[in-house]
């Protein structure tokens, strides 16, 4: 890997470690291997959002041409958000694409992702299904996002109604995550979810 990329990542690693946010436990970063090409990030769900109380793990891949090209970042923790794919964790965020600038850092990226969790952009969606729910059935969106935060990121809110519907599908032999995904997509309409699974 190019020298510049390594030296930059090393320095940024230190920057994040020393940052104020790490003291407040709001962002975290750790190494995955010795080559500095892959890192693991973590952001806390921002307060007053459905993601509050959850910890979200990110996969960060550093290209050879870093910092002149952006790092490749993806959510490993499953999340229900209009700009993040509920299937792959792929992110739609301008600074990770055309608006990346070489003087940006991993800390900027993590903080921008945290800001994205606080302020979604449903008009520039990565996940069309989620974006539709966000715009059209916002209450249902908030519940689904909180439920996913609880199920995958350790968030505090539980929804017994959701759990029992998932259980019904599990009883029919459906995997728990598949059941949750299809119910979320069908606005927690059990009948429609069943139809979608078995037709």
């Amino acid at each position, binding site marked *: 890997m190019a020298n*510049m990329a390594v*030296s*930059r990542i090393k*320095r940024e690693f230190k920057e994040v470690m020393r940052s104020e946010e790490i003291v407040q436990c709001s962002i975290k970063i750790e190494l995955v291997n010795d080559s500095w090409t892959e890192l693991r990030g973590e952001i806390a769900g921002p307060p007053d959002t459905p993601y509050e109380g959850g910890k979200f793990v990110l996969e960060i891949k550093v290209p050879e*041409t870093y*910092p*002149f*090209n952006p790092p490749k970042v993806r959510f490993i923790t499953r999340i229900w958000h209009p700009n993040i794919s509920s299937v792959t964790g792929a992110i739609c965020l301008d*600074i990770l694409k055309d*608006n990346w*600038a*070489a*003087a*940006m850092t991993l800390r*900027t990226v993590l903080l921008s992702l945290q800001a994205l969790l606080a302020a979604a952009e449903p008009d520039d969606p990565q996940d069309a299904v989620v974006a539709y729910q966000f715009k059209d059935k916002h209450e249902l969106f908030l519940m689904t996002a909180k439920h996913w935060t609880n199920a995958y990121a350790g968030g505090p809110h539980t929804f017994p109604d959701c759990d029992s519907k998932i259980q019904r599908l599990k009883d029919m032999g459906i995997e728990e995550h598949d059941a949750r995904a299809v119910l979320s997509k069908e606005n927690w309409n059990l009948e429609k979810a069943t139809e979608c699974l078995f037709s």
Partner: protein
Amino acid sequence: MESDIEMELESDNDGEYDDDYDYYNTGEDCDVERLDPKRADPEYFEYDCLTVEDIEKLLNELVEKLNTILQITPSLAKVLLLEHQWNNTVVVEKYRQDANALLVTARIKPPTSSADAASTSAAAAAQLLKMGSSGYKAPPAVGGNANTPPYRSQMCPVCASSQLGDKFYSLACGHSFCKDCWTMYFETQIFQGISIQIGCMAPMCNVRVPEDLVLTLVTRPVMRDKYQQFAFKDYVKSHPELRFCPGPNCQIIVQSSEISAKRAICKVCRTGFCFKCGMDYHAPTDCQVIKKWLTKCADDSETANYISAHTKDCPKCHICIEKNGGCNHMQCFNCKHDFCWMCLGDWKTHGSEYYECSRYKDNPNIANESVHVQAREALKKYLHYYERWENHSKSLKLEQQTIERLRQRINTKVMNGSGTWIDWQYLFNAAGLLAKCRYTLQYTYPYAYYMEAGSRKNLFEYQQAQLEAEIENLSWKIERAETTDLGDLENQMDIAEKRRTTLLKDFFPVAV
């Protein structure tokens, strides 16, 4: 294998139907039309085929002119011209009105903060315009005494290394980065095909990097060449009067001050294209409509696939007939029945003025039908036009093969002493004219498809039908060329071309 004489004839023939050819422009055309080609020929188009060097010279002249007026570096002048369709007058006008705004919109300068007074920003703009490539370097500290070196050590935010100030470069935004970082950054951008759009490395800063800084710092010849090639492409694309020839590997750039959907033919590779949109020439249809049509055809290619059959059954004796010529007037080899390949109707009715094969008959009661019926009707309508569009395109190719066969037959005749190549030349003229007419006819179908029903559409389809009938007559006569009377053929050519120009004059939307 073609002999030399054939090659020569072929190239002659090519030239014959260029814009200045006026074979058909005789007889009843009045004198005014003859004097003014713009009025006589709806497809008349003036343009030049220029080389890369010609264009470089042309652009450089514009840059130099702006340099002299505004006293700015060539690379800033290029940015300003690029952003204003290479219109010097507009740039100078905008500069005189509000230099600051001009520089901000061209991304030479960052947006001015509200604290900046308009007068000082204009002064700053004036100063900025004078800066050369040395202007990207920070000036040495002023007022320092003998103990302080002229440059202090500074930290580069990209590579995080500490270096002396003279290793740093910045744009008008003041964001300063070390030389190595800028260079590496430029090379990564150039590698991705980005040239004049390269921006500052600072977050949220959209100030553009001018050409001179890139070329000062990037020294690898491969990278410099790439940068200049990409930049040249962008300059040409931003100039409204210039078009790259779409021909494969052709370097020619076509220039015209008339920016319309007329046909330009590259003088080097002979590729013809629509000057406005760069696609295949498409008169009488306009650029948006042809784009819509081609997209639709690509989207619906599966539905339309079944029509591409080369065989149909004779409507009378039901024997299977293969189409191997371009003419749509078919004669069954078995029962000698004359019929139309498109609609399978009797050919006799096609010759009369009731010829309606090209016209699609709308269901008059369609508004009251169910959604299902309407959808089927819409598909039927599309297929009607698509089938004819596709069929004429195929006919064009088949007629090309007919000409080849004709060439061989004539070759044999000439060898046997029956006439000379000159005697047979008229046949190739006829074939060239046929191709030209059928090409226009093919492009009348997308036009008709998107036309709203009404008297204008009726007129269009009437003229289209007339053109189609004459084209098929011409094709029929050419296929039987050796037995057709010369005067008869020439008469048919004249009629077909008149029908074509009439239709274009009435419906080709670019008429001046």
